[in-house]
């Protein structure tokens, strides 16, 4: 029976290759509508690609606060150095342009497409179509582009017009015209020589005796090369438990985005002072917060770091990893 079943797909493939005429070289297999449907996730400004589904600003608020605010801020203001999503109107021609969804993005479709394909950062393509409509609607609302009654679906979303759409134009370079001059090409008396600002460049690899490792920035521990925790490990020679070792991979995938830089109130991994009161609550409390999410005066912890595909054990192992590095 099993053998028989395995033959069916083969027969189907052969049938397809008979029906569809082959290309000049006859290489490859037919991409079936089912295969394409699973991967064809793109959305265009004219609405092509928007799926069935619906989501409101009201529904978006809760989803945004649970899944987005830890990086992008409750009002789209951006936590730490994560992208600012709202505001910035009228700044594009000033000395401090702020390019946000509202001030800069030319098409609302881009918002839907990007949220759906790449957000949340630690759990891409985990949002349902309805959730994507809701969060997109809420981000538009944060930018005053739709009102709080707005309900997004294929029709209403494709009609949203972004304020900055008309301010993009196709590349018109070459724009500067230099001459291949050889003598007296510039006036040396007009020269103003601008030097660099000290301290911006990681120069440990060529400054003798600087004592700074090559890819560290002026010895700033948060700027270590990989996961940001290597310095902590080297300093203290911590031997991790098996649990914590298992948790390291989960940490790198789902936790480090906030717990390395310490944004959104997340205690930095390795920062003993920040962790001591948390560890005192006991592992059950910590694990519970990590698995179910937590919102307090000091910050927001999305459930499972926003990656709901993690098992509870994955999260518990990652917590063990952080705690062992931080006590």
């Amino acid at each position, binding site marked *: 029976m099993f053998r028989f079943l395995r033959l069916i797909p083969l027969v189907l493939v052969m049938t397809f290759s008979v029906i569809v005429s082959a290309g000049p070289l006859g290489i490859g297999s037919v*991409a079936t509508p089912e295969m394409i449907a699973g991967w064809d996730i793109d959305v265009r400004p004219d609405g092509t690609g928007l799926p069935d589904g619906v989501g409101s600003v009201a529904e978006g608020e809760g989803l945004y606060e649970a899944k987005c605010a830890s990086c992008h801020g409750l009002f789209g203001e951006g936590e730490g150095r994560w992208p600012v999503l709202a505001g910035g109107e009228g700044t594009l021609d000033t000395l401090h342009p702020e390019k946000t969804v509202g001030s800069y993005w030319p098409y609302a479709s881009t918002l839907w497409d990007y949220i759906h394909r790449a957000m949340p950062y630690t759990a891409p393509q985990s949002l349902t179509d309805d959730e994507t409509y809701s969060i997109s609607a809420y981000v538009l609302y944060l930018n005053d582009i739709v009102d709080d009654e707005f309900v997004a679906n294929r029709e209403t979303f494709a009609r949203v017009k972004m304020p900055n759409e008309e301010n993009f134009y196709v590349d018109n370079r070459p724009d500067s015209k230099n001459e291949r001059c050889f003598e007296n090409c510039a006036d040396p008396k007009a020269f103003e020589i601008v030097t660099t600002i000290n301290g911006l460049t990681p120069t440990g690899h060529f400054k003798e005796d600087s004592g700074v490792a*090559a890819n560290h920035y002026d010895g700033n521990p948060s700027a270590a090369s990989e996961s940001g925790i290597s310095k902590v490990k080297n300093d203290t020679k911590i031997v991790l438990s098996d649990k914590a070792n298992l948790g390291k991979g989960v940490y790198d995938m789902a936790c480090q985005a906030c717990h390395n830089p310490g944004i959104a109130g997340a205690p930095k991994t390795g920062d003993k002072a920040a962790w001591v009161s948390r560890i005192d609550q006991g592992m059950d409390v910590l694990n519970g917060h990590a698995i179910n999410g937590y919102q307090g005066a000091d910050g927001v912890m999305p459930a499972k770091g926003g990656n709901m595909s993690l098992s509870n054990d994955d999260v518990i192992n990652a917590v063990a990893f952080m705690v062992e590095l931080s006590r």
Partner: protein
Amino acid sequence: MGKIYEPSLPKLMEAIATEARGMKGLDRRNFLKGGIAAVAGLASVQIIPKASASPNLPPNLPKWQSHLGPGVVSKPYGEPAEFEDLQRRTVPWLTVDAASSISMTPLQDLEGIITPSGVVFERYHGGIPNVNPEQHRLIIHGLVERPLVLTMDDLRRFPSVSEIRFIECPANGGMEWRGAQMEALQFTHGMLACCEWTGVKLSTLLAEVGVKPDGKWILAEGADAAGMSRSIPLEKALDDTIIVWGQNGEALRPEQGYPLRMLNPGWEGNTSVKWLRRLEIGDQPWHHREETSKYTDLMPDGRARRFTWVQEANSVITSPCPEKPLKQSGFVEIRGFAWSGRGKIKAVDISFDGGVNWERTELKGLVLPKALTQFSYRTTWNGQPWLLQSRAIDETGYVQPTLKQLRDERGGWSIYHKNSIHTWNVMENGDVFNVQIS
């Protein structure tokens, strides 16, 4: 070619030297500590080698010659000598997270035009996916006669091509738009690499699927966590786009898109989508995030250029540079790279006085379209300060602009495509600093 450079404006250079001595913000102590004797004016500079009692130096027998070394396959996959320090480096404050960040190629250490695969700069928007090539597929669909799904084995059956082409992030030099910032060549110009790429021309694959008459654009999409996507016009695809699986003689490195990537020669790096899983043919561009919110060039009037694909002609002197100061007076070969996204480099000129007067350099080695091209100028250095610049001219006649010319057009906020003439200030003691002349 090969002539000795005599400072044509001694007064100017003296003034520059005086000014350089008064530089603000530079911690010069570290640069003066290393046993380098600084002598004022045009007197000769001498570096006294540290007295060495090494038993390996002549006339002694070196220790490595007195016994056998390791035999064959002691390292089945070789690596650089332990004495070398060739590595990618990043500027940690640039980005908030390493999975969406950039590292730079150590241009200061490269020999010739090929960048070793292990130090090609990295740019990720969602980290490096660990793609199993047996389970990787490329789907080509949309406005085509025959939508296809291709395995890696399928792709290798197509007639292949190998081309040496540069790839450059459009943000290369972006940190320098508003002022000199980076005190190292690796950080001013290192979002750049040049490799031999092997794959199938996209035009060959498009013939296989049969593009319908209204198919004008192609969406390229990656299998990474960012689902990286860019819209590519059909003209480019039919011109020289390659779907690549090989890099410098072996499979692509994971960092460069293993097992399959797009390569759009001469175009901004992020159009060359890595970990390529899907090509959709459509009648309009998609205007996705990485071609609207990012990778568009904000102009001073608040409007922005889109689809700024081409990397215009650019050049930089790689020796001397901040990491490779002049250590010896006397003969010096000044070396550098030039490249243009529009074709071949036709010529490179060099200036010692900040762009007042220029000399022709010699191109050497391979001169290929859309590839790093080496230039060389032989001269003598006797401790005189220099404001070193290079200026590339490509086969279209385009002359690399000055920083002032670029800023006059584009202001200081466009982040991308800063290809202006770069200045190294060579000091009397041979140290080299990044400066801007405005």
